[in-house]
């Protein structure tokens, strides 16, 4: 027997079942059912309709929850470590034009080798990755992305070259990855404040100011000139020296720029000579520093050369200047301890070099790698088992007067600047370090 049901007419326009089979509510018009079917509809229709309403609610709630969860997922997820290892990375020029500074990244490895040999930190070993950027910012970006996205990195240490560090700075900030510290004193790494970047290197501004102060107050030089690399490194320093001199009502007798690619500096040195400068404060790279000193000798220009801490590796500088670094008694600032200072920590590291890296030279740049790795290890030890980016960041923000073989640093939640102090050294006649002035802070720092 067939009975006709007009859904629309009877208002039963939803949730009609035939047995367990849902007949779409959108079915309108006249459908024909037999008695058994009508009975099934009458029996199950009401409760099934209720169930579907519940399902709808559950689905909406689930979608909302999914949305909320997805949103939360875009925020920081803890990566870069597990129960067995903590992954730390660094990039640096292992080959290419600045490969001489590749030992910075290898210096950091020394610290991690020591830690791992001592059993790791809270049961975790430090797995350390180095990527060769060939002193090329685009290579640095590629290396850092590969490390972050394929290896999963908890923290970065070091990083040579202002350009390479600038190139990856935005990416690391976006990923909220801890970074201690770019191996440069350029202002771009502390202005504006970056909550995930902690600076270990004195700013070039502070460095230049302390050197200028020493020249004026200790050496009593009246005629000071500046020889600077025509980029952020040199220009920050030039501005700082001018500011320092202005406090004493003095002016530079000459300010000569040089491009990093130049290898003939005779006209620049002649200009410095013509200025009658008693001292030349120079913020240039090692190669140009060597050529500048050589050229000044060949042009019979007698002056006191004073360089930034980037040139405080006297052994290397003596080698490339044919001993002129010592003969001319070059003065530099310094941001590390003396490489062979007589103390327990230095003895520990020099012994470790013999054990873990016998082909490496324990030098300033190698030490720079140690300097940037020390605070991370210190903080990881404090955090222990409960490792997270936040926990490490919080501990880094509490660091006060921490000093390894580098400068003394203090960081807070709102200040991640490098130290404001440097030492003043002079290269002695045998290439030895003569400390002319202990750690001195730039008291007129504008940072």
């Amino acid at each position, binding site marked *: 027997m067939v009975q006709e049901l007009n859904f629309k007419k009877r208002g039963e326009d939803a949730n009609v079942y035939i047995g367990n089979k849902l007949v779409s509510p959108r079915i309108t018009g006249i459908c024909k059912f037999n008695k058994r079917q009508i009975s099934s509809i009458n029996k199950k229709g009401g409760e099934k309709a209720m169930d579907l309403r519940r399902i709808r609610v559950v689905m909406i709630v689930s979608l909302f929850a999914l949305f909320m969860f997805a949103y939360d997922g875009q925020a920081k997820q803890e990566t870069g470590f597990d129960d067995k290892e903590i992954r730390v990375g660094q990039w640096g020029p292992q080959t290419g034009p600045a490969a001489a500074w*590749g030992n910075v990244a290898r210096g950091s490895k020394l610290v991690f080798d020591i830690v791992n040999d001592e059993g790791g930190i809270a049961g975790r070993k430090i797995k350390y990755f180095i990527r060769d950027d060939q002193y090329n910012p685009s290579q640095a970006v590629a290396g850092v992305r590969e490390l972050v996205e394929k290896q999963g990195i908890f923290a970065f240490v070091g990083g040579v070259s202002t350009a390479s560090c600038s190139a990856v700075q935005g990416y690391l900030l976006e990923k909220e990855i801890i970074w201690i510290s770019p191996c440069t004193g350029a202002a771009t790494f502390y202005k504006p404040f970056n909550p995930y970047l902690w600076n270990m290197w004195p700013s070039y501004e502070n460095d230049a100011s302390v050197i200028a102060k020493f020249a004026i107050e200790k050496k009593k030089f009246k005629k000071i000139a500046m020889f600077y690399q025509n980029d952020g490194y040199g220009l920050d320093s030039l501005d700082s020296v001018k500011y320092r001199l202005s406090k004493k009502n003095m002016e530079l007798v000459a300010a000569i720029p040089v*491009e990093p690619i130049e290898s003939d500096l005779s*006209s620049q040195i*002649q200009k410095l000579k013509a200025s009658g400068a008693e001292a030349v404060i120079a913020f240039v790279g090692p*190669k140009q520093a060597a*050529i500048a000193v050589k050229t000044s000798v060949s042009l019979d220009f007698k002056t006191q050369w004073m360089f930034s801490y980037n040139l405080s590796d006297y052994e290397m500088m003596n080698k490339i200047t044919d001993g002129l670094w010592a003969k001319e008694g070059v003065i530099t600032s310094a941001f590390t301890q003396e490489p062979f200072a007589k103390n327990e920590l230095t003895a520990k590291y020099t012994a470790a070099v013999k054990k873990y890296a016998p082909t490496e030279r324990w030098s300033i740049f190698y030490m720079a790698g140690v300097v940037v790795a020390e605070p991370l290890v210190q903080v990881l030890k404090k955090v222990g088992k409960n490792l997270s980016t936040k926990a490490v960041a919080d501990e880094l923000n509490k660091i006060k007067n921490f000093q390894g073989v580098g400068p003394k640093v203090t960081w807070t939640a709102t200040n991640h600047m490098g130290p404001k102090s440097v030492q003043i050294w002079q290269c002695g006649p045998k290439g030895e370090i003569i400390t002319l002035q202990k750690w001195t802070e730039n008291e007129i720092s504008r940072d």
Partner: protein
Amino acid sequence: MPVGQLLIEGLAMGACYGLFGLAVVIIYKTSEVINFAAGEMAMFSTYIVFHMLTVYNCPFWLAFLMALVFAAILGVLVQYIFLRPAKNPTLLGLIVITLGVEMLLMGLASWKWGAEGQAFYLPVSYKVTYEPISGFIVSEWAMAVFITAAVIMAFLYFFFKHTKLGTAMRATQQNKHAAKIMGIQTDMIFAFAWAFSSVIGVIAAMLLSAKAILDPQFMMEPFLRAFAAAVLGGLMSVPGVLIGGAIMGLLENFFGYAWPAWKPITAFVVIVLVLCVRPSGLFAKHYIKKV
């Protein structure tokens, strides 16, 4: 402005550029290939001298002579291994091959001697200076540069004008196939040109590194300037290249003194202006376009 001193320093650096420019020109004169590996070939041979001086403690002149021999062999090898096997090469293809050789040599030098700079010594020092006239300080190094450049220029001028080999090299450059028909062994000529160029290159590189430092990249910038000097003088003219180098050195020094910030580009701007007026350079006799 210390005119006398700027003149001496400008001419000395210019002579170095000119001398090195000759290494570029010699290959160009025979094959019209610009050898972008010239700087690194010279750098590598300079490292050989350095190695013999510092590791084997050879007397300088022995190391020097052996480096010349090595440079000649290196030149022949580069031509024989990398350029000769190229099938139906275009000029651009050959130039790209020289760029590859440049990278290879730089990598090899970095691997063997490290990327850290080294001091390179010559028996003539930049530290020993004389002042024959007030305001004119001349170092032994500068005197050595002047003498070397003059001797090499005179030799090359004589060689290309008055020797059979020199004439054969010029003939090969003008028309390789015609030269071959006339009995010139052009493959030999190419190999000789590469050897010859490499030898002159290492002499220039040794002079330059004694004033600067020795590292695997030290010839990159001088190569650019030497190439520019060669273009300025006219890529076909031996005296033109040296005069181009001198102009380059003087321009850099005088402008560099007056406006230090503009020093790196001044000479190149002048060269562009000159080439706008004389596209084949100042001293090229005529512009030959091959079809």
